């Protein structure tokens, strides 16, 4: 097989990506062994690999994962219910939409996670603070996307509903909501991702809860291989959630 044929092969980019990542890890391992990188600052990748079973068994990673998942699930339920309801409310009342849409967009751009000390005071150092932080962070995108989905319903569909003399409620449930559902799901997905990011972040910051707390605890114990292993685990979980929601979105929007 010629070099050109190899580089044009479908599998080559994936192999190149994964291969260069593996090569970078090997180089780091080598540099640490040689002494060019301080092993008390960066642990050897082989040590991190060996730390995985220890972190999984001794630090109860599965249980912590379930705690974080439960928090994310609670936050996503709240985000979906209140976000979709908020979007529908703004769609139904044009004046309210004109008055507040820019505010919601401004809130979406604001660094909301910084109000976590305020939530600590109001709700205490417990799971409610973490869930409410996820909810606060994920709400604005769901409202905006729901509004976008409803407002973007094709005029012809609405006219079909009118020609059938559908009531206001039927028009909403039979025409508007199904037509807006894919866009609403995009918003829910964004909301879930925002919520998850903030949940893990706040767990880490307040040293409470699941996976975020695990990283903080291991770092405070100066267990470097364990810290790196836990960070890798959180990255893998984030990627899995991202992939899963992306698949769901594609399933809902087969035309795209």
């Amino acid at each position, binding site marked *: 097989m010629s070099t050109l044929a190899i580089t044009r092969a479908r599998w080559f980019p994936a192999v*190149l*990506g994964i291969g260069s990542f593996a090569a970078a890890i090997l180089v780091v391992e080598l540099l640490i062994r040689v002494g060019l990188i301080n092993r008390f600052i960066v642990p050897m990748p082989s040590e991190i690999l060996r730390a995985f079973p220890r972190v999984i068994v001794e630090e109860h990673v599965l249980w912590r994962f379930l705690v974080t998942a439960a928090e994310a699930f609670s936050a996503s339920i709240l985000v979906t219910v209140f976000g979709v309801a908020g979007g529908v409310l703004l769609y139904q009342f044009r004046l309210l939409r004109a008055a507040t849409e820019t505010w919601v967009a401004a809130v979406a751009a604001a*660094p909301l*996670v*910084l109000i976590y000390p305020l939530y600590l005071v109001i709700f205490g150092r417990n799971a409610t603070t973490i869930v409410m932080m996820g909810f606060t962070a994920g709400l604005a995108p769901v409202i905006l996307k729901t509004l976008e989905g409803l407002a973007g319903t094709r005029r012809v569909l609405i006219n079909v509903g009118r020609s059938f003399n559908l009531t206001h409620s039927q028009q909403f449930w039979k025409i508007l909501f199904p037509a807006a559902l894919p866009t609403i799901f995009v918003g829910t997905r964004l909301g879930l991702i925002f919520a998850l990011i903030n949940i893990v972040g706040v767990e880490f*910051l307040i040293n409470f809860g699941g996976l975020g707390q695990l990283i903080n605890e291991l*770092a405070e114990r100066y267990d470097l291989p364990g*810290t790196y292993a836990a960070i890798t685990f959180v*990255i893998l979980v*984030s990627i899995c959630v991202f992939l899963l929601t992306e698949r769901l979105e594609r399933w809902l929007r087969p035309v795209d």
Partner: protein
Amino acid sequence: MAETGRLTIPAASRPWLWPVTALRIAIITAVLVAWEALAASGLLYRDVVPSLAAIGKALFNLLTVPDMPVHIDLDLRVVHIDWRLTIPAIYWHLYSTFYEIAVGMVIGCLSGLVVGIAIGGSRLLRRAYEPLIYYLGPCPKIIFFPVMIMWFGVGPGSKIAMGAISCFFPVALNAAGGMREIDQVLIRVGRSFRANTWQMVTKIYLPAMRHPIINGVRLGLGVCLIGTLLAETKLSNRGVGFLVIQAYSLFNMPLMYALLIVLFVIAIGANALIGRFGGLDDIKSR
């Protein structure tokens, strides 16, 4: 010659207050009244919801009362500056945070731009490395903070690194996307003029990618701000994030609200500024 002017609403039929403005004022008033009523009722723990007057006073003190001595000693050969001033401490903390964010943004944006252009410009590199950036992008970056502390210490270095990491991903992804969408005619024109790589980047790629890059920088600024400030709340002795967590530790709720107001105004203002001066409004109006 007939004169045509702009169509205007006659003064008599023009409403004194537009309904949208009236509703906005009504909402703001309702929220403020509800807040004040909640503060006076004592339904929540005392001081968790302080009165508006207390928050206003804290905001005024925060921005105007000088409580921090500063010594500026500059020898500029021609003139020697030796000033001893007392300023409100918030400005020094704001300076620290701005410095960390600015350096983090420069590092994150430049590296994101280089990686984005490289990935967007090559089909092979894009298929090999874009998934890595795409899937790492939504991870919570704050989890890297313990690592950044090990690498760069507990000072501003680790906060700058947090800002740079946070900013890198949106800029790289937007630059790669922008690079892909450049009109091929422009690239062929550049090549036909035998432009070298630097000329292609500065004369063709960057001008053509202006909007996606600015969008990336705007997104990057938001996450850079969050990354830096969260890092300051976790471990620091300077910056606005440190002030917020200190207000929490001292249970000084009016001060905490005042700080959050200052932060949100700065964040939303910076975001709007980048959007306006970056020409994002032009795209929307097209």
